[in-house]
């Protein structure tokens, strides 16, 4: 965390204007990623983490999505106000993205090799045969057997894991400084999941690439991430180094999350699912958004939005009773 962050998102606000109401998908998310660091964004579905990732790269379809506040700075440069031409050069070269379901995210009618080579062509880095060879080399690097032959195949001819590897190959083609992975392994079974995460780690270390890992899987966060940012109802409610946060959470929601997940050392203990269901982002409760489902909730929580309480250097939590939660 010491040196200058490669990406810093400050008080990002995104709303969807559909129907006669406005859905506040992201309510002031703030987080940052240091070079060569893996930051995990943890949260249930509907917590706004995927929207945040898309907003960072300005991939939200507008309308209905509108970024109504906050800033996204990449190496000091504000991404959101970048002119179109510059934004187009930025995507793929500086930041790249890996999506969750490769089957729908890859173009079904173009060969895998062509789609990867397109990155080189689109950014004027290489053309024709040179671009194809680089694509083949990338396929090899991400562990696809017999890459020269497979480059000519199409998306539907690959297994789930292989498709995800193609996505990753595409993302790291121009060795971006930051890779955003939006639930890269959710659609895969556990064994393949581990291989993909391992691949991501190796590639990251090889090219000193920072990574934002968006997931709801605590196990993955624990294994791979350096820092974790817990999101609830469109805000980052707690963040800090992974080991610290996961061992002694300072926010009621993080604690509840940890208790609702089976872990080896608590064998025999009854799991405690979190009561209620994620909030309706069109009607976010006043005060602390988690208060309706929170064990520690008091009147204060219901009325006043909790301040950000610093727990330790590089750690904070937005909870009136951060101390009490911390001591549990």
């Amino acid at each position, binding site marked *: 965390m010491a040196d200058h962050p490669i990406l810093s998102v400050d008080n990002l606000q995104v709303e969807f204007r559909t129907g006669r109401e406005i859905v506040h998908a992201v309510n002031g998310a703030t987080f940052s990623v240091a070079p060569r660091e893996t930051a995990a964004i943890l949260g249930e579905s509907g917590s706004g983490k995927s929207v945040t990732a898309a907003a960072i790269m300005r991939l939200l379809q507008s309308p209905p999505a509108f970024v109504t506040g906050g800033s996204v700075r990449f190496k000091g440069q504000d991404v959101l106000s970048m002119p179109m031409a510059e934004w187009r050069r930025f995507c793929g070269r500086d930041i790249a993205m890996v999506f969750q379901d490769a089957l729908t995210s890859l173009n079904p009618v173009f060969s895998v090799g062509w789609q990867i080579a397109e990155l080189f062509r689109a950014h004027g880095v290489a*053309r024709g045969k040179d671009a194809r060879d680089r694509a083949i080399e990338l396929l090899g690097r991400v562990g696809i057997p017999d890459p020269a032959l497979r480059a000519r195949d199409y998306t539907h001819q690959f297994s789930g894991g292989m498709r995800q590897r193609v996505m990753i190959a595409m993302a790291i083609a121009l060795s971006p400084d930051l890779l955003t992975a939006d639930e890269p392994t959710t659609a895969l079974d556990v064994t393949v999941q581990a291989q993909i995460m391992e691949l991501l780690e190796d590639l990251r270390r090889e090219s000193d690439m920072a990574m934002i890992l968006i997931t709801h899987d605590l196990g993955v966060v624990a294994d791979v991430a350096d820092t974790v940012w817990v999101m609830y109802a469109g805000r980052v409610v707690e963040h800090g180094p992974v080991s610290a946060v996961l061992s002694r959470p300072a926010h009621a929601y993080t604690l509840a999350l940890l208790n609702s997940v089976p872990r080896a050392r608590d064998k025999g203990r009854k799991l405690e699912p979190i009561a209620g269901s994620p909030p309706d982002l069109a009607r976010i409760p006043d005060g602390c958004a988690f208060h309706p489902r929170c064990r520690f909730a008091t009147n204060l929580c219901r009325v006043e939005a909790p301040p950000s309480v610093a727990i330790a250097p590089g750690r904070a939590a937005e909870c009136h009773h951060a101390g009490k939660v911390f001591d549990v």
Partner: protein
Amino acid sequence: MNFKNFSFGKYSNRWLTGAAAVAVVFGMTANLQTVQAQKIVTVVLSEEPEGLDGCNANRSTVGRVAKQNIVETLTAIDPKDGAITPRLATSWTKMSENTWRFELRKGVSFHDGAPFNAETAAKAISRTMDSKLDCETRTKSFGDIKLTTKVVGSHTLDISVNKPAPILPTRMGVVSLSSPNTPLDKLVLNPIGTGPYKFDKWTPGQEIILTRFDGYWGKKPVVEGARYIWRSESTVRAAMVKVGEADIAPNIAVQDATDPTMDFSYPNSETTRLRIDVTRPPLNDKRVRLALNYAFDRDALRGSILSKDIEHATQIVVPSINGHNPALKVRAYDPAKARKLIAEAKAAGVPVDKEIVIIGRTNIYPNGTEAMEAMMAMFQSVGLNVKLRMMEVGSWLKYLTKPYDANRGAILLQAQHDNNNGDAVFSIFNKYACGGAQSSTCDKPMDALISKAATQSGVQRRDAWREVNRIIYEDLAADVWMYHMVGYSRVGSRINFTPSISTNSELHLEEMTFK
């Protein structure tokens, strides 16, 4: 293709400016200068001729191009009064009841150099009459009449007929003579005749070119050549002459003839009528037939749906044809009388409210459908139960010629007949005699008179045909008579040419001169 810095905005601007530039350049170069070849006449017909064989020249589509231009006849019929003038035959005398001797013009040769004499003329006539070929001259104008020829002198030819032929010279005005080298077993597309113009080229679907024949026996015509093109839409034909792309449009519709300086109306020897099926109730009752005539407001259609220059008709042949009876009075529009007649018929037990169907044919003559709809309304207004069915020519023909459908209802058939061959025989037998292919009437005494008239000549012949027409009109009242029609031609400013009654089926290039 690298789309990298291909911003979307620029792309569409480039496309628009490019298209605009092309349009401007295009506009300038294309203001078409219609280069009008000096002495070539361009004629725009309404349809492409279906062949050009000389022996079909009496069919209007072929005749317009070939007759008296490429192929000529022994005698020529003067359209105004049906008189016969010499053409390839200089004189003719009647030798017996069935034979005429023709003296042929000397010093005439065909376009391919073959000499024109008794022998080549005989060969041409026998080819035309050969049943192996479907020559329209035979099927239309001669039917069961057989011609035989005998060469008497080098330029003298005897032509005899298997039945008395008092008007053989008139009939020979219909027989066009082609070169002896024309194949005998099939109809040709490149006619060779003796006319002032010879066939040059036919690009199928596009144009036919004729060029002046220098070795022509007659006066050298002014027009050096002719180019025939065809367009189906009358509006387009009229526009082409107006713009100068064509010099003459022989027939255009009345609504396109809007420019008096260029448009001429001419009686086109066509007569329109509703043929009444006299054998089917309620039309088998003369009162109902007369009521139909009186219910027809004949003045309402003139100058509105049809041209103002058409004349009321009382019989099948136009006034200029021998046998036309001028004494027959037009039945003026009198709806009250019509209703009275219908009431009388109803009282006499005639099923007057039985359905009567008008069978029309689309595009039989310009605005034919509108005319039928108007007449249907007129008949309905006097209380008759009349329906209308317009048909394409194939279905319509089922009702026109025998054998008629046995269980057909009461039919009024929209019909049009043209006869510019000078004599009533070409019209009446077919349409009114018991044996006539299109006859719905069968009146024994009239039949006898018809066959007698066919054998007579001169004044007896004319009076006999007049009597037949009177019987048809007054005794039988077998038709709802409409009009003797007119055609409209548009002639460009470059040409001196006034259309005549025969313009509908012949277009003599030799008569044209340039302004």
